[in-house]
């Protein structure tokens, strides 16, 4: 009720004249409300006026603060009346007006009197009204009465007090927690609703005490709970306990027997609650599932839509994880396809699609075709998604499923729906090679009459990539060129690019494509003309890009794998000069955002366009600037990678030191960021003495000391090492911070002349293989993988020994390799027994590396891993294996 509603007179005009509130107006009603102030109260009339005010509020109108206060005060006068009906309406009115703290005081005494009245109805309602409007101080005054009311022999009063307790727990938990003895007593009540409310309150009081909850559940599951609602609550609490305690040694869960016994309860809501609780147990076995599935199956043929819906919805969820357990219900499900409730029918169909076997696909598709016409788009999308996963499950059935998709693609539908269909077809084209040509053909048909620019351009792009490699590329040209004639500028530009791809990749078509492209030179849109000109020049050999044809194609159609933010940053830094902007100088590294990723583990990595990568890019730039400003380092060449800072000291010690490893082709620079945390000291001539005896390949070449390190102003010292060119040398370094300490008077800032030489032990530092690996994402792992030379592939298997979990093993391998996880595959779903993880990166020497990891976990948590590597250089593939073998 935030803002006042406009008068609804217009709406009311067309209502029929018997409407008792016809023409009602707020102003007039508020006038009428003056009758509350009459010395002789007419209860009947007052009730009517209250109803009118409530009606106005209920229709969405609001009272201003002044109006509200006025009404509130006149309503309080009505406490003089003894009429019970009027009193009830007053209670409603007071709750609805939600008075301010100052106004509440006006009614508390009257309400407290009602709370102790002999009439149960007054007591119950006064409690509910009071608990709704009071604050902590008044609560303290009435606490005693509320405690009594909880154990009142009248169930209505007890329930009112308990429900109020649940509400008050939000605002004054410490008060309500003191009532737990009374609440405990109320749990034993014979009145069913009292039991329900008491159980709810008791659990909320104790919910943070696991032991208490376990005790509560254990004692109540023995069978003193009668009310179905309370039983449902108890099932929820019991499954909470099960979730927290897991499976015991004998493979049994505590309270499972209780859940199972609830499946035989006489109330349907309890049966449903128990069945759902069982299906949602983590790692539920098929033996545990069977009884729950059986009762749900019975519900499927119920005459009540609600029951059918509840059952089919639960089974649908089960089918995602345990499709086999649900197959028994398939016959009942099929009869639900014609259910008059479309939600039920959709759920039934998607369940069937998940559980169906190969032979039933054709029959199902026939049934679905009839059904699709009369459901809403949102349901259709669900069905399309289900069909896509079905097709991936049974690739042999692609023909009928693809046909189905193309049929529905032709029918009416909104953007989301069409997009779902197109996405599905694209997925099928990608994953089922046999389906490619049919799929492309259907998509061609679709763009002939497609009103969505986004979809048209997507499809044109796909056609350009896939079309030239089909058996008869020429048949697509007509569809593509039609776009140039018929569509808007965006689509035309996309079509020109697609045409050019055909021309570049299919020699036999080249001359004919040129004819088409030349026609595009007269297009009304700049972008279209520009594209056509570029393609004509480059493909026609007039302008030369690169030396071979392959390079030309790479230039025109290659994937653009430079993160756009990095490109933007580099372009901003570029100052116009003799040397042209070199795109290969743009850093490709995308720093992962560990924090963001941890917060949202289920989500896909934000990828190159993540906004947080902006400042990180500048950090790399900053390093590069800093290092190139030191003449000794200028000759080292181009910086390959800078690691994240590694702390070499504990937090809150005298001196804080962290190190950044800068990797060059033939050198490694260690940058020590030091800061002095003692105000009484000034450090001078700070260096780090490094013992590289455990790093044989490294030879120290230069140390740049830090001249002075005053309090609270960090500085850097550098140590450079030489290492064999292009070799990923590893090793361990032990470090000592050496410096001269001078006393400082923090008050005056005077520095003592004489210094003392001192040293400070730092933690060891390691250069690992991961330091030589750049995290570089690829946009499409599959394409990139297939684009690599299969000769370079190296496959081997490893036993990783016992691990805490699959996820831990996956993360360990990722961090050893220091590569970029692709397509969100670093996230391992709970309880999965196997997992495939895709990684990409660039190894030192600019060698692109792709890794496919397949993990499996056995019963006693033994993890095995299969590692397949492809890279530009087979030696690097071997190297990766060495890294993993040594890690």
């Amino acid at each position, binding site marked *: 009720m*935030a803002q006042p509603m406009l008068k609804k007179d217009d709406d009311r005009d067309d209502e029929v004249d018997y409407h008792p509130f016809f023409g009602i107006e707020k102003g007039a009603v508020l006038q009428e409300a003056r009758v509350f102030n009459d010395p002789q109260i007419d209860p009947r009339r007052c009730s009517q006026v209250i109803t009118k005010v409530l009606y106005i509020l*209920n229709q969405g109108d609001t009272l201003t603060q002044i109006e509200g206060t006025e009404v509130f005060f006149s309503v309080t006068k009505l406490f003089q009346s003894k009429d*019970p009906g009027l009193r009830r*309406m007053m209670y409603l009115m007071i709750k609805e007006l939600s008075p301010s703290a100052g106004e509440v005081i006006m009614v508390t005494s009257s309400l407290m009197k009602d709370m102790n009245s002999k009439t149960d109805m007054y007591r119950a309602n006064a409690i509910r009204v009071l608990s709704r409007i009071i604050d902590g101080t008044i609560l303290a005054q009435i606490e005693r009465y509320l405690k009594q009311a909880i154990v009142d022999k009248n169930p209505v009063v007890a329930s009112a007090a308990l429900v109020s307790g649940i509400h008050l727990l939000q605002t004054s938990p410490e008060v309500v927690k003191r009532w737990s003895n009374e609440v405990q007593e109320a749990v034993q009540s014979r009145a069913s609703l009292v039991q329900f409310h008491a159980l709810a309150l008791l659990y909320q009081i104790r919910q943070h005490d696991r032991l208490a909850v376990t005790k509560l559940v254990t004692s109540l599951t023995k069978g003193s709970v009668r009310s179905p609602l309370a039983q449902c609550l108890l099932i929820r609490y019991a499954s909470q306990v099960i979730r927290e305690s897991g499976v015991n040694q004998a493979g049994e869960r505590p309270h499972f027997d209780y859940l199972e016994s609830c499946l035989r309860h006489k109330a349907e809501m309890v049966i449903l609650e128990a069945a759902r609780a069982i299906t949602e147990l983590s790692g539920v076995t098929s033996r545990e599932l069977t009884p729950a599935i059986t009762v749900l199956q019975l519900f499927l043929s119920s005459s009540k*839509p609600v029951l059918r819906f509840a059952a089919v919805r639960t089974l649908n969820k089960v089918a995602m994880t345990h499709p086999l357990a649900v197959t028994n219900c398939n016959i009942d499900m099929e009869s639900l396809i014609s259910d008059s409730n479309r939600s039920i029918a959709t759920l039934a169909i998607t369940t069937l699609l998940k559980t169906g076997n190969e032979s039933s696909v054709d029959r199902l598709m026939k049934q679905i075709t009839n059904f699709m016409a009369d459901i809403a788009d949102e349901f259709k999308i669900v069905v399309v998604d289900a069909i896509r996963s079905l097709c991936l499950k049974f690739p042999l059935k692609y023909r009928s499923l693809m046909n189905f998709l193309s049929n529905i693609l032709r029918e009416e539908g909104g953007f989301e729906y069409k997009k779902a269909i197109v996405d599905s077809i694209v997925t099928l084209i990608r994953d089922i090679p046999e389906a490619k040509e049919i799929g492309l053909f259907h998509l061609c048909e679709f763009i002939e009459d497609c009103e969505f620019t986004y979809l048209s351009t997507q499809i044109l792009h796909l056609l350009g990539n896939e079309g030239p490699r089909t058996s008869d590329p020429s048949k697509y040209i007509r569809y593509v060129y039609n776009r140039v004639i018929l569509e808007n500028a965006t689509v035309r530009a996309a079509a020109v690019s697609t045409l050019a791809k055909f021309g570049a990749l299919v020699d036999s078509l080249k001359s004919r494509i040129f004819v088409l492209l030349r026609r595009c030179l007269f297009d009304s849109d700049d972008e279209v003309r520009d594209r056509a000109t570029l393609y004509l020049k480059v493909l026609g050999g007039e302008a030369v890009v690169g030396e071979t044809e392959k390079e030309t194609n790479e230039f025109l159609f290659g994937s653009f794998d430079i993160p756009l933010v990095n490109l933007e940053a580099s372009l901003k830094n570029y100052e116009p000069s003799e040397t042209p902007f070199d795109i290969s100088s743009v850093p490709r590294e995308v720093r992962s955002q560990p924090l963001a990723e941890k917060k949202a583990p289920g989500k896909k990595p934000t990828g190159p366009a993540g906004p947080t990568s902006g400042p990180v890019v500048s950090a790399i730039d900053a390093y590069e600037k800093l290092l190139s400003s030191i003449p000794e380092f200028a000759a080292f060449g181009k910086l390959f990678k800078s690691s994240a800072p590694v702390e070499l000291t504990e937090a809150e010690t005298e001196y804080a030191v962290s190190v950044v490893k800068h990797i060059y082709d033939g050198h490694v620079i260690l940058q020590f960021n030091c800061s002095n945390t003692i105000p009484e000291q000034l450090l001078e001539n700070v260096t780090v003495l490094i013992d590289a005896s455990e790093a044989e390949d490294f030879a120290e070449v230069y140390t740049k000391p830090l001249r002075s390190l005053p309090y609270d102003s960090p500085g850097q010292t550098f140590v450079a090492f030489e290492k064999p060119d292009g070799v990923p040398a590893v090793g361990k370094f032990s470090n000592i911070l050496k410096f001269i300490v001078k006393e400082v008077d923090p008050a005056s800032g005077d520095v003592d002349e004489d210094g003392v030489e001192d040293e400070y032990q730092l933690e060891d530092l390691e250069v690992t293989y991961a330091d030589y690996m750049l995290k570089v994402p690829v946009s499409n792992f599959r394409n990139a993988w297939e684009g690599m030379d299969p000769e370079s592939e190296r496959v081997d298997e490893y036993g990783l020994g016992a691990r805490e979990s699959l996820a831990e093993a996956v993360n360990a391998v990722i961090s050893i390799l220091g590569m970029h996880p692709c397509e969100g595959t670093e996230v391992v779903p709970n309880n999965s027994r196997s997992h495939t993880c895709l990684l990409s990166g660039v190894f030192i020497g600019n060698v692109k590396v792709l890794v496919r990891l397949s993990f499996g976990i056995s019963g006693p948590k033994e993890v095995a891993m299969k590692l397949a590597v492809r890279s530009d250089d087979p030696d690097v593939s071997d190297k990766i294996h060495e890294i993993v073998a040594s890690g």
Partner: protein
Amino acid sequence: MATLPSVKNILVLDSEGKRVAVKYYTDDWPSVSSKLAFEKSVFTKTMKINARNEADIVMFDGHIVIFKFIQDLHFFVTGGDDENELILASVLQGFFDSVGTILRNNVEKRTALENLDLIYLCLDEVVDGGMILETEASVIADKVSSASGLETMAPFSEQTLSQAFAVAREHFARSLLK
């Protein structure tokens, strides 16, 4: 954390989707316009369904809505999409039947508006701040009629003998069915 079964709103709309009586218990719909938009979409999604004998159900936008129609009145109870549908259905049934009892089985828009105070009281007795207070229709109806004391007594006395008899028989039949 295991949660309490809770009701997000109870709606009574007329045959054009306009409000007769509504009660919202959560902040899912913060403004009047979002409430009206919800009512409109729930009404259009369900208006073609024949929910006169059995309560029916629809799920959208993360809500479950159970509904039942009688004459020109449409009753709705909304809950979260992880709620036990049958609990929500029992709330609807309790409210629906108690309104039937109070209006002496003459449930239609006109009588409902004429007895709007009783409908409001019914709403108040079924759910309190989202918590289910009572689902037994006869208990709810008793609480409401005892509350409205004299006011309902007066019309009762005006009934003809045969009407009174019919009501008594109805009550008797109900108590037998339980």
